[in-house]
């Protein structure tokens, strides 16, 4: 079946344009936006890893290596669209408008980290694998019912395709032709399990055949193809063309989480040939006259400051409030719960 789902690319590992016909789509503004956001979330990611090592946040799942996939797709969204991410998609969330301070809070075990900025339709990261796919179908279905042109995007990994909810969510979306983008980041591992143990199909894109919907396999480390193909699928969805499954082939550079030791299950050689998506974009920029060393340095500086400030804000954020535990379970907490709260707050004061 790979024959039907060849991997689409726009630039190669050396940053060379593979198809001149795309040139018109790659304007300077886009190139710089992609670069800015990829570098931004990289800066965030590296900082988060370092904070974890210092014990300043909890276990953290780095997305290093997946920046093109996350930024390219998130930038293709419109302001009123919905995002349903996983725990590894804070890059996409930040790009779409999540608050960085709150993102750090999240990884410090704070529920406040799940609250998006007012008006931003970003669902909390799904922890139980694949459960967000039906949500994305439902939210998009609601948009369709309301007669808007808004769409939803669900992020999920290669491992997620094995869960029942992947299937049920895709099926609902296809039956009701909801404007949903199922954006798969095939980083080739689910913790320690490689994709050939996860599935017997050669591609994830071909799973679209089950639902009679378009499926496309793209180089997830090529930010241009990610952006343009996501955009194309979104346009189709906005115009009543229903859902699309996008398989963005990428690579998890590091560990599954900071608690994971990948040397247990993969060799040093594995992934050695993968070119960092940011490096690839840099090469393209250099090849095509988009590179401005000075400007780049000042962006790096700016981003460093932003991230440091977010960390500071996170660390000076008010302490977690015990009462919150009881106050948000129901709109109006039942009496028996209020009694528990009261007794416990009293006890804490003793």
């Amino acid at each position, binding site marked *: 079946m790979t024959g039907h789902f060849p991997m689409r690319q726009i630039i190669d590992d050396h940053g060379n344009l593979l198809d001149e016909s795309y040139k018109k789509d790659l304007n300077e503004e886009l190139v710089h936006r992609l670069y800015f956001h990829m570098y931004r979330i990289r800066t965030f990611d590296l900082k988060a890893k370092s904070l974890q090592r210092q014990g300043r946040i909890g276990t953290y799942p780095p997305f290093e290596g997946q920046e093109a996939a996350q930024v390219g797709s998130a930038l293709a969204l419109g302001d009123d669209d*919905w995002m349903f991410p996983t725990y590894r998609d804070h890059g996409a969330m930040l790009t779409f408008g999540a608050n960085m301070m709150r993102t750090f809070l999240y990884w410090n075990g704070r*529920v*406040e980290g*799940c*609250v*998006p900025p007012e008006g931003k339709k970003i*669902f*909390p990261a799904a*922890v*139980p694998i694949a*459960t967000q*796919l*039906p*949500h*994305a*179908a*439902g*939210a*998009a*279905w*609601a*948009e369709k*019912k*309301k007669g808007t042109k808004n769409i*939803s995007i669900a992020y999920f990994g290669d491992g997620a395709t094995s869960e*029942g*909810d992947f299937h*049920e*969510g895709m*099926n*609902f979306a296809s*039956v009701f032709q909801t404007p949903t983008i199922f954006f798969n980041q095939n980083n080739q591992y689910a913790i320690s399990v490689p994709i050939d143990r996860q599935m017997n199909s050669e591609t994830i894109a071909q799973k679209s055949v089950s639902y009679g919907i378009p499926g496309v396999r793209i180089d997830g480390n090529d930010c241009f193809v990610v952006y343009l193909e996501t955009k194309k699928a979104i346009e189709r969805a906005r115009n009543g063309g229903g859902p699309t499954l996008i398989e963005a082939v990428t690579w998890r550079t590091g560990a599954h989480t900071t608690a994971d030791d990948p040397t247990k299950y993969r060799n040093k050689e594995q992934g050695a040939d993968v070119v960092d998506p940011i490096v690839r974009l840099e090469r393209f920029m250099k090849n095509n006259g988009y590179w401005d060393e000075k400007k780049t340095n000042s962006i790096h500086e700016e981003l460093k400051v932003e991230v440091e400030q977010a960390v500071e804000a996170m660390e000076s954020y008010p302490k977690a409030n015990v009462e*919150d535990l009881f106050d*948000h*379970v*129901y*709109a*109006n907490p*039942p*009496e*028996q*719960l209020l009694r528990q709260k009261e007794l416990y707050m009293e006890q804490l004061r003793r």
Partner: protein
Amino acid sequence: MVISTKNLTETKSMTVIQAINDGMRVMLEADNTTLVLGEDVGKNGGVFRATDGLQERFGDDRVIDTPLSESGIVGTSVGLAVNGFKPIAEMQFMGFIYPAYDQIMTHVSRIRMRTMGHFSVPMVIRAPYGAGVRAPEIHSDSAEALFTHMPGLKVVCPSSPFDAKGLLIASVKDPDPVLFMEPMRNYRASREEVPVDSYSVEIGKGKLVKEGNDVSIITWGAMVPVVENAVQQIENNGVSCEIIDLRTLYPLDQDIIAQSVEKTQRAVVVHEAQGTGGFGNDVVTSINDTSFLYLKAPVERVTGFDIPVPFSALEDHYLPTPKRVQEAVEKAMNF
């Protein structure tokens, strides 16, 4: 407590299933964000006819036949609910709610908490439950205890037509998700005058079905008529029974239980789910917590046995019967 701003004097004689249908009709009329979805709820009107006529009346974009996919139904309802709709999702039988358990446990019940109220997913999950109707295997489960142990969800279980409509409307209006259990055995077992207009029965309040002095019998759903039947026998023997229909299991109306038990000083809990892990244990604990010193005898429980609900040939042996209730009352009285 009944809350209504409307005329409640115009009534119609309804069965439980008609009252449920009418509750959905009222809410589909009142608010066009209300949706009904599930397997066979549309064209077919539901395997029990609970949604009969609703699709014809409100269209197939509001009363929706879905694929055979419980996790999909509940999971997409999460997306619909967070985006402004009020789904009333049907599980064809409660025994088929288990594939959706993950969605209910990890999302439906937790989204408000997870986002500190920024997002919420008010929805109603309707589930016909219980044994005694000669249904095939798995169709007869009574799984309330799997949901009362799930903070963020409310669990409602009416027994009569009036309560069924009023509680269903209250559930649809509730800002939080509600599991709405429907006793299949009561669907067509009796009729009652039910207001044609909209009204709510308050969630979280039990009902004193019958006053009495010697023993409190606490029950809900399909067991209410069984208890009523038993009580007729028991009172012939001169024991005065108070009957409480809890109507809502979470939040539990601890006051109505305590008041009754403190008066009668003896209690029997009756439910059809298996005893071990059953919600009856919560009632026992509630009495232990509130009314320990009043008790003259241990709280008795009459429940399903600790076995899977049997195939239909023997299901009556699984279910609490008037005789078993009677003997439990005797035991409590003679302690």
